[in-house]
């Protein structure tokens, strides 16, 4: 395309055509550092110096308002170091990333929410292993439980970034107080409470698993939480790594146990209809009846706090809050199911490594946390920087050394299962298919 190499000529033509072209079209040079570089604020970023004017591209699924927060969170870093971060967020991220990578157009960094996908890229030799600084920073600041999920065949590729806690049940503290209900601390209490509420004519539970091309995932979270609670973390690990069959009797038990709530017409589906309406209810709307009193409990991750309409007070004494999804078998401990994203690198240029290191640093996590709506397992996060009550609770749970943390199982499984047959299987299960044949179907798809 030779025409692109002769801008001057084209400018002339543009002039002829009457398009006023000002000098702004020309580049302003490489120096991106702002004037306050070298000031006290920038002292913390000195170790990342030396990449002024370099560009680093980041690709992730975070977009819209959340992407604004993301860009603000590293603005000081880019001002001080002169590294330009070119961020792109897209809803089709999981499908688009492999296309770009295979097409030779990979971003420098990507925030991948699935350890399974990290493994796929690592196995295909597409990922760069961490630089020495990045590795040190990650190992200092992040719990081993988490690093394990970013490691493939003994090499650390993914640095954990954000996190969320999935073992939460949303409820309305106001409504509970009004009706004299108490927050259950054991599974049996929770069932008892459900029966009490059902007797008053209100459906105690609500759920929704419709989520576009990811439909089904909220149900898989349910199952995973119950497996963790009835069988313990070891069986959970065997299940997610396919050391035991997907339809192992213990898993069948757990799914049936989840079914006593999810597929119980007396309990479901407050504000939406019967059990089957779970399949077509958008997950974002599913918990909203909690604040209107048409449903009492909704099991969903910490990030559900963002779904409530503006003006909803999300706090222990507010319109909505969450309690820990209670343990079933005390002997299995207090397990926590969660998820998060991992920063992986497709390039090993020094500036890319600098950004990757920075994203694991104390400066970054606190800068991001101050903007709200975000938690991480990074132990450099100062809880004082976390404002919202639900985020505080999440951080406490994530930083609790006595808890057992397990990553969302469907993100660990191969995508064909974890983002395919498991999701679809759960949709069929909600729609009336029996547990045994659903799990059998998923098992046979896992090769």
């Amino acid at each position, binding site marked *: *395309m030779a025409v*692109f190499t002769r801008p001057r000529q084209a400018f002339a033509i543009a002039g002829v055509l009457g398009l006023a072209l000002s000098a702004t079209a020309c580049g302003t040079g490489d120096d991106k550092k702002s004037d306050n570089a070298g000031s006290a604020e920038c002292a913390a970023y000195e170790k990342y110096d030396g990449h002024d004017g370099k560009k680093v591209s980041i690709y992730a699924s*975070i*977009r*819209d*308002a*959340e*992407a*604004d927060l*993301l*860009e603000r969170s590293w603005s000081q870093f880019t001002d001080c170091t002169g590294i330009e971060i*070119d*961020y*792109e*967020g*897209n*809803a*089709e991220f999981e499908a*688009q990333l492999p*296309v*770009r990578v*295979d*097409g*030779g*157009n990979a971003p420098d960094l990507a925030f991948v929410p699935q350890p399974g996908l990290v493994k796929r890229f690592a196995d295909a030799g597409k990922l760069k292993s961490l630089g020495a600084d990045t590795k040190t920073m990650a190992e200092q600041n992040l719990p081993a439980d988490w690093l394990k999920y970013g490691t493939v065949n003994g090499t650390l590729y993914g640095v954990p970034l954000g996190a969320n806690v999935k073992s939460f049940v949303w409820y309305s503290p106001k409504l509970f107080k009004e009706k004299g209900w108490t927050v259950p601390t054991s599974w049996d209490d929770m069932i008892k409470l459900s029966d009490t509420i059902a007797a008053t004519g209100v459906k105690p539970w609500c759920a929704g698993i419709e*989520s*576009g091309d990811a439909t089904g995932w909220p149900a898989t979270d349910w199952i995973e939480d119950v497996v963790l609670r009835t069988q313990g973390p070891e069986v959970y690990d065997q299940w997610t790594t396919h050391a035991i069959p997907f339809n192992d009797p213990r898993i069948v038990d757990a799914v049936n146990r989840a079914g006593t709530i999810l597929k119980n017409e007396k309990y479901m589906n407050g504000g939406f209809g019967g059990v089957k309406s779970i399949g077509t209810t*958008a*997950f*974002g*709307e599913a918990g909203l009846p909690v604040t209107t009193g048409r449903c009492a409990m909704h099991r969903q991750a910490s*990030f559900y706090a*963002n*779904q409530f309409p503006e003006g909803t007070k999300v706090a222990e004494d507010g319109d909505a809050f969450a309690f820990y999804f209670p343990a079933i078998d005390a002997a299995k401990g207090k397990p926590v199911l969660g998820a998060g994203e991992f920063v992986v690198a497709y390039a090993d240029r020094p500036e890319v490594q600098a950004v990757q290191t920075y994203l694991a640093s104390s400066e970054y996590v606190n800068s991001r946390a101050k903007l709200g709506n975000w938690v991480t397992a990074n132990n450099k996060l100062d809880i004082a920087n976390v404002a919202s009550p639900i985020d505080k609770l999440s951080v406490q749970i994530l930083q609790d050394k006595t808890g057992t943390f397990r990553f969302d199982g469907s993100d660990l499984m191969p995508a064909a299962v974890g983002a395919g047959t498991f999701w679809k299987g759960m949709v069929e299960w909600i729609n009336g298919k029996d547990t045994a044949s659903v799990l059998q179907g998923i098992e046979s798809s896992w090769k």
Partner: protein
Amino acid sequence: MTTATPTIAVGTQQTDGPKTTAGRVRKRLNSRTATLISIVIAVVWTIPTFGLFISSLRPEDEIKTTGWWTAFTNPQFTLENYQQVLFGRSSSSGQLASYFINSLAITIPSVLFPLAFASLAAYALAWINFRGRDWAYIAIFALQIVPLQMALVPLLKFFSTGVTVAGITLMPAWDLVDEQKFAQVWFAHTCFALPFAVYLLHNFISQLPGDLMEAARVDGAGHPKIFRTIVLPLITPALAAIGIFQFLWVWNDLLVALIFAGGGDETAPLTVRLAEMAGTRGNEWQRLTAGAFVSIVVPLIVFLSLQRYFVRGLLAGSVKG
């Protein structure tokens, strides 16, 4: 929207009509039923869009709790959804106007290139005698079935690594940045549009009257001259019609643009921004209602202003008469 064209004027002239009274009654009944049925179909066809339009003017709570028809008994209207779509609050995504300009910059060349190339090819396939032309035509026709999803990775590789055969670089990597990436999108859209455009244009061109060509040839005109002076003017309506289809396709495309241009406000088309409108977790879908209408406006204007070309004939017969 005037659709009357000289070519159909002959056909519209009515004769004296049926001679008997019964015949007259039957004819009137027939045309009444015809009118009735066509109105019913038109209404049924329009209701879903109309419902969406009403919805786009209703407040979020109302959309999510009651049907759009209740707006007639309990009118509550707002421009809030349009406000959010047009002046969205997300600073990282930039202004809708940027995306609008991107859409234009992507669409215009993506319509022109395939039209030009396809009409040249269609002419050759129809009027130049060369060996294997039927097979070439059938092959191009059959290429319509290749799902463009399967072409994304190889085409992206073509741009990002170039073409090297036996160690010789036939084409270097394109290495485009920012708005230069439009070129990749044009290229991709042109590739994907060609089979359909060649198929339709071949249908049209091959049925042009042969004696026209013959006469020109006798006068000493070569293929380029015949193509420019005889064929091009005759196929203008078909080009306009196919142009509209291609325009609608490119304007509404999300996938090709995402892969070849990226999702930032420097290059991404309107569809990318509108897809984001649903909110990070899909819960703000009231904005989709307004977004859908914003994105329909331009194709609708294009269609309405070029509509008469459809009537003049997308297909051959029209010039034969």
